[in-house]
């Protein structure tokens, strides 16, 4: 067991965990943040995506130790990034309106991936969206509604 301290969704937290415990399990089991999902456990599906120091990572591949001192944002902390006390981030609103979430299991990861993409490319081309989200698998939508949600979010943040 090791003590690991990090900032998660703007709050400082310390957990006791085996150093090699997956960050995904620390989030879900120790912090009860179940928005990150396990789809494959091997870095293929992106449903466990979180932002670690601003980078999009698959939390199923990150040992807890690596989160020491890090700043982490999960789906639970995304809405306040746009404005404090905001219930829905504009990206979340666009996913709702455009039908970007069907079964919803990939949605937390998709929304974080979208956030990351729009930080990098505020006005992404379709190709940039397709490539930016290629690490996040969705079996329901065929991605088209998701692309529309991303484009709509991009146009809203930069009118």
């Amino acid at each position, binding site marked *: 067991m090791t003590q690991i301290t990090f900032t998660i969704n703007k709050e400082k937290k310390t957990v006791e965990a085996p150093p090699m415990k997956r960050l995904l399990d620390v989030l*879900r089991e120790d912090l009860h943040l*179940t*928005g*990150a*999902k*396990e*789809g*494959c*456990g*091997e870095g*293929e*599906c992106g*449903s466990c995506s979180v932002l670690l120091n601003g980078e999009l990572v698959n939390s199923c591949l990150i040992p807890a130790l690596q989160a020491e001192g890090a700043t982490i944002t*999960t*789906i*639970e902390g995304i*809405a306040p990034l746009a404005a404090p006390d905001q219930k*829905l981030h504009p990206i*979340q*609103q666009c*996913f*709702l*309106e*455009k*039908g970007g*979430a*069907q*079964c*919803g*299991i*990939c*949605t*937390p990861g998709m*929304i974080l991936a979208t956030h990351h993409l729009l930080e990098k490319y505020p006005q992404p081309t379709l190709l940039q*969206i*397709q*490539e930016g*989200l*290629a*690490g*996040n*698998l*969705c*079996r*329901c*939508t*065929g*991605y*088209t*509604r*998701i*692309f529309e949600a991303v484009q709509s979010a991009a146009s809203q943040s930069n009118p």
Partner: protein
Amino acid sequence: MPDPTQPASLSTVGTSPIRKEGTAKVLGQARYVDDLHLPGMWFGATVRSTIARGRITSIQFDPAIPWHEFTIVTAADIPGENTIVHLTKDHLCLASEFVNHPNEPILLLAHPDRALLPAAVAAVTITYEELPGVFTIEESEAPDAPTIWEPAAADHHHATAKNTFKTYLMESGAAADLDHIFATADHIIEGEYHTGAQEQLYIENNGVIAECVTFDGIVKSVTVRGAMQCPYYLVHALELVFNLPEEKCRVIQTETGGAFGGKEDFPSVIGSHAALLAMKSGHPVKICYDRAEDMASTTKRHPSRSRHRTAVSKEGKILGGEIEFALDGGAYVTLTPVVLSRGTIHAAGPYHWPALRIRAKAMATNLPPHGAFRGFGAPQSIFATERHMDKIAKVVGLSPEELRRRNLLALGGRTATGQVITDTVDMQHLLTRALAESNYHAKRAEFARTNPTSAIKRGIGFATFFHGAGFTGSGERRLNSLVKIELTPEGRPQILVASTEFGQGTNTILCQVAAETLHLPYEDILIAQPDTARVPNSGPTVASRTAMIVGKLVETAAQKLCVILTNSDGLPPSYSPADFRTAALAYLAQHGTLVVEARYQSPGDIFWDDENYRGEAYPAYAWAVYVAEVAVDTTTYSATCTDFYALQEVGKVLHPVLAKGQIEGGVAQGIGYALYEKCVWQKGHMANNQMTNYIMPTSADLPPIHVAFEEIPSIHGPFGAKGIGELPMDGPAPAILNAIEEATGIAFTEIPLLPEDIFERMTRTPDAGTEDLNPTIDRDTRVEPEVVTS
């Protein structure tokens, strides 16, 4: 009653309101089964067979593991019958003497610490006396094949030969004259087509949590919650495993992260397992498979083989046909006969057959049982038929378009089961529109011009097809579905159905139907989470039946609710939402509760003969033309779908955004089926049971998918809606392979079609043979006169 003269400002059908559970999903607050924790909960795991077929000779437990900390369940612990009931009882809950496929469950383990389970599973050693297995349709039907099942092994009537789960013989038109028709036809065109297994690959694996109440060692009740499509299927499975009455088996669906058929029959297995562990351990027990276990152990789409033999006139009129359709069922019957049935009926396609004989059979193999997957047999048989139509066109010397135009069904025509087409759909028009909007003709001409000098060969192809909505034949009558609507204490209507939401939009469209019927805003309608202690059996959430069948029942129940409130003098003839609430609260104050129900009644125009497979196979069909454009790189041998156009007539579209999402998602799965998704089998074991080596399309792999609807309201569904969910799975694979033939001149007949397959065919030496069009031409015989539909 709602005043039809009122402005339609409240109208919600045909608009796209936010999906009911959408906000929780985008916030990451939706709770899927693995997000739930019950007090005192333990975790379960499964010890599975490592061989495909054999007799269990010993089970050893490694003494290094503290087994006293674990609960261990074997078949001997089952209080009721050792069976997972679907259509028959051949499927064991836990194997005890024999195993019939790799990864068959034998023992169950539970422990409070999830992390200790994998090592414990690995510490159980099972030895076998191995028996030879069969792994393909061909091996199973071989005269000298080992016998997995005798015909009498289960109560599947019509099965006459060993290793055969089910057979159908469907004859229509002048089938008795087929010998003569073939003897005198201008052309006889034969073809054989194969489709592979396909993994549903929902992103949430199968998972459940079970609780069990025992008294004096006797099980009193069980409760299972988890990811599933059909709560009442699991109720019926638990009744037998625990020998309990229905009301003591409670099943609750949790938010479900994709299903596509993969959570139709399988939850009966994992749900029974978790409940047995809960019984023996005295704790709630959660079993959530990891990806590797889910892929290796749960159901897939049935592999298929279709053989077509078609008699055609020199004008390109189909005169008669024989189709042999075979499915690989895996080791147990599960839902295979029903999958076979849908595949058989859809094999005829939307064409007029003056004479047709279809022989269908499902063979047993030593693979894990194959099960439901979106389309349910139809994508397999439609793939073959639509490839074959292009082959017929080539032999006859017509374009694929013209060949279809000469044979498409039309209003008043009869399907292969003798059903008269009463939908006013016009397939000729759909074809014209689809080819125009996809720019088919111009592209076809352009590719013919540019391909000879390009290393990238491009092609465009299409498929024309229909898909029946609802259970086949008398299925809906037998389901006898029931829907209720109650008033909440706040006076809001709440829909009570066992129909589940797993992404398709069940919650949303059923609320839209109720809102429209009651003339209330969509936001005022609630829908309860399916919990069999509370909701009636509205039937399984499968077969594209929810919008049409359950939706119609919701409409009927809502009308009854309205009548009751009107007759109680509370509701004025023309009312506002506030009036409704007032009337509802007044009724509740006086009577305490208000629950209305609607039960399925077979429409008068539906007749079905189960013995001879004749009659109205489905209340309604969705009709479609899908056009695919491909690029085949002759240096890398990879084929890519570069553009996709999907036109369909699905009746009234209740929610355009959800409907488009259904089509796009289905097309993406269909593209995967055609070009990416291959199950690699090694002696019945799926060798590539990981997302790293079973490849589904990513956002970078898919073409633009253009979706268009024609809406001709159907009398069978609410506000004219028909079924939509399965349809988009049927068309992509044949459209893509038809396009690849246009691009390369090579007639591929098997999916999935991977670069190695294309490499193999393109580099094959000429004397190894090219495709034989195999026409038998007898030009001296008289041409059959144009046959008018009778």
